[in-house]
């Protein structure tokens, strides 16, 4: 039968190939040197949760919205859009740049309905494979046309940001962001890093609802950051994965971007409909780059398409149809705004409830950060050891950096969660 895995591993370590089982009639594998990839830390949490038989188990590792029953949600506006799509439209290839309608609506959301940049056709924009795809296109574009540039990424950030710019072969640096002591923004540290970076550096900024900390700059702080960016001639690239989902108001959630636009920055922007429209698996998003003028926007868009063509040719149609049907229909759009506000409100409500529960339990620690932070995630400040205790003793699953997904908190489990957190932190 198959060679035992230990022997095979030993052979691999010596640089050889593990031989195939005889009945396979195969040659020795050409893949002997291919190491198994490390397990994804976030997915590992979900797997462990699913495997846990305890009836009390709570999953606050999940990065997808859940309703108050802990169930995934498909928005009504989405269901209606799908009803209109099903079996009706043909499935001809989209243009390489994706659905024009979806792009137009996305730009209005990000840049403002009456944006002069849209009127002046200064924005190069393509439909992208959700936020990941948008970031990757930008990273590849950066590599190709600005090969000496690097990207500054906040500490911490969504882990895939590092993978994206690394695979695009753009050198990365980090900049100060999170302040552990206050569980807030290290604004002074951030500004220092902005000032010390070489002029004309690229910076990745989370437009709202920073992932994983939930810590966003205030409006005044954004203005200062923008000013300093002008002084340094830095290029801001916004990853906006939670527009509408953070405060409940898409206009408000785009405030940072609007400030930078007012100040004359030529921004790049990745948008995702995964959370705010619940289209996760549809991979619907948009990449835009504000250019000098219309001619340049046409050139830049053509180059973005050139990057997309050998990656996937043209983007998937289904999600883009859902997005453009919803945003183009006043009634459906109005329904969407209501539903996205509903999701945001539920999360804000759970933040409040969690904090109040902890206070009522007499926790000696401050939990203000739970309600100061915004969006899906809360950086609790708990240590890995405390998180392990939560998992082992209370069957509560989250990532070991202490990040709680508020989407996994419900009226049914918030008291249990608060109690568990209190128990593991009260002796700190």
């Amino acid at each position, binding site marked *: 039968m198959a060679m035992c895995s230990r022997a095979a591993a030993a052979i691999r370590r010596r640089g050889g190939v593990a031989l195939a089982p005889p009945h396979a009639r195969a040659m020795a594998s050409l893949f002997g040197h291919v190491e198994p990839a490390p397990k994804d830390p976030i997915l590992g949490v979900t797997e462990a949760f699913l495997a846990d038989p305890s009836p009390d188990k709570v999953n606050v590792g999940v990065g997808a919205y859940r309703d108050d029953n802990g169930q995934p949600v498909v928005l009504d506006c989405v269901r209606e859009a799908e009803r209109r799509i*099903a079996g009706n439209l043909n499935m001809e290839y989209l243009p390489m740049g994706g659905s024009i309608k979806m792009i137009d609506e996305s730009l209005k959301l990000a840049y403002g309905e009456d944006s002069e940049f849209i009127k002046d056709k200064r924005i190069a924009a393509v439909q992208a*494979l959700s936020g990941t795809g948008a970031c990757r296109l930008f990273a590849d574009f950066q590599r190709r046309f600005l090969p000496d540039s690097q990207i500054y990424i906040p500490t911490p950030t969504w882990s895939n940001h590092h993978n994206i710019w690394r695979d695009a072969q753009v050198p990365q640096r980090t900049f100060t962001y999170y302040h552990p002591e206050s569980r807030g923004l290290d604004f002074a540290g951030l500004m220092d890093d902005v000032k010390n970076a070489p002029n004309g550096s690229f910076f990745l900024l989370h437009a709202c609802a920073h992932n994983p900390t939930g810590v966003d700059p205030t409006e005044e702080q954004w203005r200062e950051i923008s000013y300093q960016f002008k002084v340094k001639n830095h290029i801001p690239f916004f990853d906006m994965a939670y527009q509408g989902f953070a405060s409940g108001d898409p206009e408000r959630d785009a405030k940072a971007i609007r400030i930078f636009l007012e100040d004359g920055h030529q921004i790049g922007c990745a948008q995702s409909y995964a959370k705010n429209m619940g289209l996760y698996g549809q991979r619907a998003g948009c990449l835009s780059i504000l250019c000098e003028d219309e001619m340049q926007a046409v050139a830049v868009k053509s180059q973005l398409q050139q990057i997309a063509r050998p*990656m996937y040719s043209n983007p998937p149609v289904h999600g883009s149809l859902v997005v453009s049907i919803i945003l183009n229909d006043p009634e459906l759009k109005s329904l969407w705004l209501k539903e996205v506000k509903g999701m945001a409100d539920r999360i804000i409500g759970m933040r409040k409830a969690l904090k109040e529960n902890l206070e009522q339990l007499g926790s000696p620690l401050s939990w203000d950060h739970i309600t100061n932070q915004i969006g899906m995630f809360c950086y609790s400040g708990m240590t890995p050891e405390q998180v392990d205790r939560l998992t082992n003793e209370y069957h509560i699953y989250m990532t070991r950096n202490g990040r709680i997904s508020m989407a996994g908190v419900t009226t049914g489990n918030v008291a249990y969660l608060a109690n568990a957190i209190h128990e593991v932190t009260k002796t700190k």
Partner: protein
Amino acid sequence: MASAAFTVSSPAASAVAARSKVLRGGKGEARTGCRVGITRKNFSRVMMAVAVDISRFEGVPMAPPDPILGVSEAFRADKNDLKLNLGVGAYRTEELQPYVLNVVKKAENLMLEKGENKEYLPIEGLAAFNKATAELLFGADNPVIKQGRVATLQSLSGTGSLRLAAAFIQRYFPEAKVLISSPTWGNHKNIFNDARVPWSEYRYYDPKTVGLDFEGMIADIQAAPDGSFVLLHGCAHNPTGIDPTPEQWEKIADVIQEKKHMPFFDVAYQGFASGSLDEDASSVRLFVERGLEVFVAQSYSKNLGLYAERIGAINVVCSAPEVANRVKSQLKRLARPMYSNPPIHGARIVANVVGDPAMFGEWKQEMEEMAGRIKNVRQKLYDSLSAKDKSGKDWSFILRQIGMFSYTGLNKTQSDNMTDKWHIYMTKDGRISLAGLSLAKCEYLADAIIDSFHNVS
């Protein structure tokens, strides 16, 4: 002066610099060589702001138009009633309309009823789809499936599958080269270029016979360094429509085995070429039977008409299950920073169709009809050409070719004549898409081809 972050190479840059002005910044410093990036409109709001440098995208040139997609655009712009679009690589009905398979409509309505959620798929895609696609390709009873030796990842149609494989090759076989047929689908070169995998061509098309240059093909594969990757079209070669015979496939497998090359199949037309899913997979299965490790990229764009849903898979047949696990894990690691996880809709359609015996049967039938329509137009085109062309030229290569495309043997000037004089749109390499041809138009097309071939050089 340009920003320190990059160099501006465009000739326009010096013109911009000449137009530049000085703006006093908030701190009273003069900044020379800067473009004033403010309009009168928002001047007051940005009084404090410092001037924007020359655009960092100044050096970004306009990309050339896509040769294939550009054909469709030109066709749309043509007002002539006789116009015919034979550039498009998408199936059309006899009425020259796009076609959504009935079984796909059924699947979509079923999915609507089921009302499933839209949660992220795992990085490797929908499990039900992955199982179905591997079984379709290799046959459900194939030992490689039973032994768990296939690493399968749902990916973004054929392009995405090829790209993942190319990225894997670049990472784990950085010295290796990919051999691609001359000619091949235009995007193959882009994919390997962007993945930074070196490639060279093996002879394939013989213009003298309008057929396969088999000896040239074997010689070039033989001459390549051991351990090269050989990109093969599983069936219905694009753009020529010329496939090796079963005997020739055996010989190709011989030389690949001898040179320890890695066969890398692009299967974009399974079922669509001959009408039979199994028959169209026979080349792949031949290689697998020999115990070789094989890459296979699949697409459901044509055979299920799911073009824009971007549904396909990359399969890697490995020598052992634990090898397949390792390979799969590394393919996932490449996919994650590209798109995180693949789109769900097309995968569900395929899984629903293949998973239901009735729908699967319907699909096979619709596929036979599509392939059948193409065979019919081939025949009619051949008959028209033979009847109308008095020169005695042998047009039978049209019948020998298979799949959506036909290499007519027309050169660029002749192809231009097809468009300019006859309003027939095709790619400049002489490729016509029979999927865009109706029986009704065959005679007109024959006239055009005869004229272009004989009267234009």
